[in-house]
Structure formats: structure tokens, C-alpha cells
């Protein structure tokens, strides 16, 4: 267990590779209760949320969620979030644990005099059930579990799983099918044990945050603090699809319009190591003559691919698929090549 943002974090159970492959082949169970959750209540909640996010929450129906960035006035990323519409006047926002102390006051200030906001982080547990067998595990976890397979991507509903009242959403951070399950913190241990029991014969295994990181990297899902932060904007990060510039005023809109009009300088790309080496966060990316063209933001061996992969920002012109680049692995220049992402895509 490793401390992070005030939580003791389950980084690893049996080994990163083993857990990673269990999620790809069967299913894994992750305790991600450290994530920040807050609820907004009131008829103006939608307007408050939409004023702070780049995506368009007004398009959501009840029981639907979306992934979005929240930017500052410079158009760089304060956090990436999932916004859930429970009802017209009841919303749930999930933020990164490391950003909770920044995002909660940010939303609270916008909500002042308009809607109620409550930090639900401490009383809410979040357990992710992910993998090709995830929905089969859910089906064994009580009479309401089977119906969860009908959920569309980013759809959610209330359910009772192994006797625990919860909200299940068809979302995840692994590149696999599955659900993320919110429940009362007091019920978390029952839910965790019950799901593991229900899924044992299907190959369900507990998976730690280290495996979660290699899984999300293969699926090219951004990690805040690595691939995105307050020095990066959604357009260069490949998150332009979450930016709805046609939407009414939102924080960062003017800056993002200007960035779009002015053209980007750099782009987040995926690369694969050709030479022997592992790219790590912070390593410089070089061209063939040794000039720095960017920096690696995430890198790791990819257990499903048996390759070493990475993400990094490179100056435009060096971002085309097939471009030969070099990673400065602590003074050693190791060849890599820009490849399409996601690195891993599940069979559908």
C-alpha cells in the first residue's frame, strides 16, 4: 500500500503483468475510491457545470454521463472529469483525487447562490469491474446484475449488486468493457468481497493501480499529471473531441478559440520503442540529429503487446505516423517510431 492524496493505495496485488493480463483476458476488480466525487443539486446545476467544462452537458439525458476537460481561462487543463446526470436537478461529478482540493472550490465558487454542492468523496466508494468477463460477473452478482449488460457506454443506473445498493455506470479506464460502481463507503467491503466471490470462476482478480496505469496507457487514456496538466490544452492532447466550441460561454472558451485559430505547436502522439529501452515520464524526445522535439509524458512496457510504448508531445511536423524519433533514456538515445493510437483496441 502506498499513500496518495490521503489514501492508502492498492498499487499491486499479485504483480502488474499478471493483473494486467487478467483484466485483458477475464476481468479485474479495482478499488478507485480515492477518486473525488461531488454532487450538485438544483435546477441551475446544469448551467453551473456547463460554465466550467469544455464538453456539452446539456446534451445529456437522465442516467447518462460524459467525459470532459475543465479548463482555466488560458484554455489549459485544470482536470479531466466525468459528469453524470442523475436527474435534471441532480448531478454527480467525478474528478481526480490529486485535483480534488482544486476542483471542489472551483465548482463551489461557481455554484454560489445558484445550486447546492456537496463533497461526497469520503462517504462514496468507487469500485471498477473491468474486462471481457465483467458483465458476466455482474450477472452473477444478483438478480439486477444481468440487466446491466443493457447499459450503453456512459449510461448508468441504480442497481443492487451482492445485496449492496449502488449506481453502476458503463465506463472505465482500461480499454475493456465493464462498469464502475459507486456505493456507500460503509458497503464497500461487502461489495468488493461479494464481487470477487461472484467472479471467481470467471477469472476475476483484484487489480492494482499499477496495472490500471499500464492498461490505460495501452488504451491511450490520458493520465492527469502525466499527459495533461495546466501546461497542456485539450486540442494538443488529442482531447479536441471533448471541446464544444459551439457551446455558449464556458471558462477557457476564448483561449481555446484563439488556440484553434492560431494553430497548434505540438501534439500528443503515441510511440513504440524500436531499440532496447523504456521511455519514462519526463524523458526528452529527440530527432535524428539530436535536437529536442518534445517530451515523454507516459511510458511503460505494454504487457498485452509485448512492446515498450509511450506517449509524448512532439512539435508539429514530427507527429506523422511512421516518424522516426529518439528517446533520451538517461543519456542514451534509443530509437522509437510514432504509431497510431490506441495501442490496444479490444475486439468488439
Amino acid at each position: 500500500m502506498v499513500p496518495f492524496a490521503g489514501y492508502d493505495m492498492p498499487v499491486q496485488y499479485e504483480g502488474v503483468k499478471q493483473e494486467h493480463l487478467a483484466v485483458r483476458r477475464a476481468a479485474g476488480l479495482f478499488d478507485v475510491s480515492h477518486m473525488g466525487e461531488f454532487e450538485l443539486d438544483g435546477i441551475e446545476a446544469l448551467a453551473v457545470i456547463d460554465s466550467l467544462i469544455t464538453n456539452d452537458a446539456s446534451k445529456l439525458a437522465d442516467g447518462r454521463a460524459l467525459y470532459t476537460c475543465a479548463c482555466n481561462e488560458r484554455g489549459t487543463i485544470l482536470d479531466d472529469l466525468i459528469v453524470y446526470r442523475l436527474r435534471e436537478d441532480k448531478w454527480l461529478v467525478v474528478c481526480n483525487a490529486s485535483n480534488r482540493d482544486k476542483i471542489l472550490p472551483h465548482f463551489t465558487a461557481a455554484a454560489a447562490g445558484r445550486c447546492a454542492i456537496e463533497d461526497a468523496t469520503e462517504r462514496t466508494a468507487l469500485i471498477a469491474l473491468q474486462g471481457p468477463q465483467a458483465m458476466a460477473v455482474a450477472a452473477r452478482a444478483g438478480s439486477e446484475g444481468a440487466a446491466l449488460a443493457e447499459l450503453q457506454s456512459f449510461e448508468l443506473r441504480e442497481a443492487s449488486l451482492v445485496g449492496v445498493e449502488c449506481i453502476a455506470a458503463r465506463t472505465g479506464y482500461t480499454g475493456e468493457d465493464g462498469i464502475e460502481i459507486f456505493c456507500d463507503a460503509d458497503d464497500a467491503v461487502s461489495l468488493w468481497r461479494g464481487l470477487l466471490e461472484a467472479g471467481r470462476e470467471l477469472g476475476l482478480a483484484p487489480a492494482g493501480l499499477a496495472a490500471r496505469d499500464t492498461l490505460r496507457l495501452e488504451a491511450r487514456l490520458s493520465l492527469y499529471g502525466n499527459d495533461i496538466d495546466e501546461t497542456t490544452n485539450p486540442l494538443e492532447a488529442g482531447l479536441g473531441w471533448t471541446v464544444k466550441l459551439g457551446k455558449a460561454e464556458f471558462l477557457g472558451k476564448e483561449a481555446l478559440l484563439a488556440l484553434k485559430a492560431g494553430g497548434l505547436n505540438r501534439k500528443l502522439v503515441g510511440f513504440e520503442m524500436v531499440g532496447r529501452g523504456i521511455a519514462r515520464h519526463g524523458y526528452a524526445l529527440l530527432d535524428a540529429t539530436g535536437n529536442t522535439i518534445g517530451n515523454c509524458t507516459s511510458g511503460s512496457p505494454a504487457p498485452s503487446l509485448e512492446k515498450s510504448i509511450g506517449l509524448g508531445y512532439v512539435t508539429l511536423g514530427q507527429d506523422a505516423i511512421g516518424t522516426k524519433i529518439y528517446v533520451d533514456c538517461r543519456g542514451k538515445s534509443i530509437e522509437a517510431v510514432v504509431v497510431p493510437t490506441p495501442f490496444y483496441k479490444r475486439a468488439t
Partner: protein
Amino acid sequence: MSHHITNDRVYTTDHEWAKEEGDVVLIGITAYAVEQLGDITLVNLDVAEGDVIEAGKPFGTVESVKTLADLFAPLSGTIVRVNKAALEERPELVNEDCYGAAWMVAIAPTDRSVLNGLLDAVAYAKLLETTH
């Protein structure tokens, strides 16, 4: 917490081991180090036969999925053999047999008596106990 330690060699506070074998001293990393690193995915040995190495200086790195650790020479001498081919081909050998097949380098020591100043199995076990 118990970690596999053998009493046929000596240890450093950086979790390397050194074992006399004929004229040379084999160097590797301990089971504790391996456990801390997890699945080893890359071994870089940045020395060649004939290189002169100084005690405490790095001679390579071991990388796992999550992190990277430097390898430090426990004593000065001349590199006689490097287990490069085996460990480049199969880095997971370090997870499987860190005290045997996954030795890293063989050093002909300048001063063999330096080994007496390293930790024996009992002292190393005590170190692990007190750090945890």
C-alpha cells in the same frame, strides 16, 4: 516480512550481492530488490569485459514495469564477464533466479578484502528488518 537471503555471499545496503567464485566475484541483486521492483522488463549492463570499475559507481540499470534502479559496483576491479546476452534476451530471469542464473557481472577485484567490509547474511537480514 521475510526475504530469501543465502549465507554463501555478502550484501550491500543498495541490495546487491557479491559472491566469490574462484578468482572472480559475481555481482547480482537481492530477492528483496527484485520484490521491490516487481516484474523486471529490461536489464542494461553498461560495461564490457576489460573495463575497470570503481566501488560505488553505477554499471547499469534494472527496469521493471513501473520503475528503474541503478546497479552499483560493490567493489573495485576489472570486469571479467558480463551476463549481457542472457539478461537482454530474458530479463525475467532476474525474477526467476536472482541469486543464480541472473548474476550481472563478474569482477576481478583490486582488493578482495573489501568483501569483508560488506554485510553478511545476518547483517543484511537485520537491515531489511529495520527498514520495514
